[in-house]
């Protein structure tokens, strides 16, 4: 079969075979690396389900800006990654503290550890699995 034989009224979104899920994979990988760290630190206050929920929602606020904003900013890689990590830690501290009604210290510590862990491990996983 050559070309796309589907009727033209099917919207672009329905062409699942041509969808690009690479960014979604990157987001999910980063999220799954961070959730266990957050849960370890929040376990006295939040269930695993609640932790998964607020971590994923907060990450969806920060990760796209980190990924497409800071990393594509034109700064040197080192500058981009350091500013992006600071933004992620700050943003996630605020969002977690707001959503969970915890004081800022615990979310700050959790965000710092989780983001450092993710930054350390995620590039290595991408390299090992895809390149």
């Amino acid at each position, binding site marked *: 079969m050559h070309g796309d034989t589907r009727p033209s009224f099917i919207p672009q979104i329905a062409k699942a075979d041509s969808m690009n899920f*690479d960014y979604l994979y990157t987001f999910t990988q980063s999220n799954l690396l961070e959730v266990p760290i957050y849960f370890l630190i929040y376990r006295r206050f939040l269930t695993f389900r609640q932790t998964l929920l607020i971590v994923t929602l907060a990450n*969806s*606020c920060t990760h796209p800006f980190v990924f497409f904003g800071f*990393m*594509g900013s034109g700064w040197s890689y080192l500058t981009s990654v350091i500013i992006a990590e600071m933004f992620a830690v700050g943003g996630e501290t605020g969002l977690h503290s707001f*959503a969970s*009604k915890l004081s800022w210290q615990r979310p700050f510590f959790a965000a710092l550890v989780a983001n450092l862990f993710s930054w350390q491990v995620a590039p290595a996983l991408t390299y090992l699995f*895809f390149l």
Partner: protein
Amino acid sequence: MKLSYEQKAWLCLLAVLFALTMLSERSGYSIRDLKTVNWDVVLMLTPSGIVNNLLLTPEHYLRPYYSQHSERGDLFGDPAMVVLLLLVGCMAILGLLSFRKSRKPIA
């Protein structure tokens, strides 16, 4: 049927994941394009790598892959990317607000 605030937050999460899928498609970002990146440098510039290599001064290694590799998908030149980003952010914040309402104050 009345949903609890936490259930509403989960619904927001579903919407967020859907929007992220659209963002993923729109961005044109491809992991396999990262093959030509100097991975020695990227892996060196991790937290442990920075501690060990404070004197390294890398240049713009990843920028083309995140923003200029394809003709579309540049955050600074594509309004659709900006709208999708704002959509993701708004729905995520809505979910977090719903979750907050489901929480009792911590003594």
